[in-house]
């Protein structure tokens, strides 16, 4: 079973990398990009076959390591 975790900065947390990407898009001529927020995607291959158990385990992984919940939100997708 595969799981995909999206980690994004919480709303309101300054994202200087996103701001730099937005600036660069502007200099390439892409107009009208008002905001860019950068995050990360983590893909996991799990031995678990039960979807609910996998969701629970991956959520636990996010809380303990994959995301820093002080500044980041996460979402878990079971594929």
């Amino acid at each position, binding site marked *: 079973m595969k799981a995909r975790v999206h980690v994004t900065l919480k709303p309101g*947390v*300054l994202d*200087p*990398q996103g701001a*730099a990407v937005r600036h660069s898009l502007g200099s390439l001529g892409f107009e009208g990009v008002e905001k860019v927020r950068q995050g990360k995607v983590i893909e996991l291959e799990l031995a678990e076959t039960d979807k609910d158990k996998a969701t629970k385990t991956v959520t636990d992984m996010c809380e*303990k*390591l*994959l995301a*820093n919940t*002080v*500044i980041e939100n996460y979402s878990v997708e079971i594929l």
Partner: protein
Amino acid sequence: MRAAVIQFPGSNCDRDMAVALDKVSGHNKPTQMIWHKESALPEGLDVIAIPGGFSFGDYLRCGAIAARSPIMRSVVDFANKGGFVLGVCNGFQVLTESGLLPGALMRNAQLKFICKDVELEVASTDSVFTSHYTKGQKITVPVAHHEGNYNADANTLKALKDQDRVAFRYTNNPNGAMDDIAGILSENRRVLGMMPHPERLNDPLLGGMDGNPLFESMAAALVSA
């Protein structure tokens, strides 16, 4: 003072930290170096230092992997029992990731790695780390980091201010840190995390002594038998 320095793969200020601690603690009690795979700490330690560097290549987030290494469980227990812990630069990042200090250290606002001397104001002298400074004293200490932009929610910032837990502030904020924060103390004032490197400016041969009072403060307070 019995001190130990934790070493992770990618730590690079561990020897400097040990030299700085040895200088004040006396060479008859040399600072112990502890590899991150150890699970237990030696008996009788007064203070543990988490050094600067790029532990685990800064993978995932700075300090994130180191904060979950076997030795850090013992360091967290040590701190929770009232032990003294000093984290510098990457060590500060490890301390926030391990939950011993609140908030997080994010990418510098200008996205650049900053390596230069910065001026700090000593904001609190009420700790074993800062008692040999005077409140409001201006000191110059080097910084060398890419992720030193301190971030915390409004309640945490208020608590840090109300409880006099901001130890050092930048006088000319280099990295976008909230409230110019360069270093903070835990609620029991026994854990200090700071981005600037006091161990890099504690000898005239290094260009100054402004970092040394931090180590002298510790040695004076933590006299062991």
